[in-house]
């Protein structure tokens, strides 16, 4: 394991830690459910994907490295799905927006469910 290899893995770990930190600061500091979901579903997913990509660089394209790539694909598919479901349940529960300016658009027709 030479120096450039180690340096690439260390840089990917640093980037992932930075994105995890940004996502959690957004989760704590933002005023609204929808804003918090925006922060966590993008930044935390990118941080965890960067960690898994560091695992891919460390282990190479076979064995655990391939599992890391599968984990990246899985996170990129499931994180927006989970965020969409959470925001939909917040909408159904009637959680309001933070300011008075934003509001939900009018439903186009009542016959369609969702």
């Amino acid at each position, binding site marked *: 394991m030479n120096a450039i290899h180690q340096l690439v893995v260390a840089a990917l770990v*640093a980037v992932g*830690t930075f994105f995890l930190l940004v996502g959690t600061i957004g*989760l704590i500091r933002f005023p609204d459910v929808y804003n918090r979901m925006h922060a*966590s579903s993008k930044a*935390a997913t990118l941080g965890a994907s960067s960690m898994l990509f*560091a695992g891919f660089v460390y282990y190479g394209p076979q064995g655990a490295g391939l599992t890391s790539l599968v984990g990246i694909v*899985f996170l990129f598919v499931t994180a927006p799905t989970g965020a969409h479901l959470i*925001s939909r349940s917040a909408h159904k529960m009637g959680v309001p927006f933070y300011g008075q300016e934003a509001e939900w658009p009018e439903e186009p027709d009542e016959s369609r469910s969702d």
Partner: protein
Amino acid sequence: MASEAALLQPVVNAGLILAAAVTLLAGYRVIKGPTVPDRMVALDTIGTNVVAIAALFALATGRGLFVTVSLVLAIIGFISTIAVSQYVIEGDIIE
């Protein structure tokens, strides 16, 4: 393999410590969060952070098995998010 990684080991250890601290900070939103979707968002974030911690642990110890552990944790987190959001909307999951 972990013994010759002299440059990598402090960076991975610092990343583990910071990721664990960030996960504990997300627990603040689980306890404090005003509504139920706040707590769901915070628990989803904790699940993603635990995936990152498992991947970092695979780097720190040099055991590739923990990458598989992180994948399993990601699957469990996704299924639990779907189940809790369905429970909040519908009131029951399996009818």
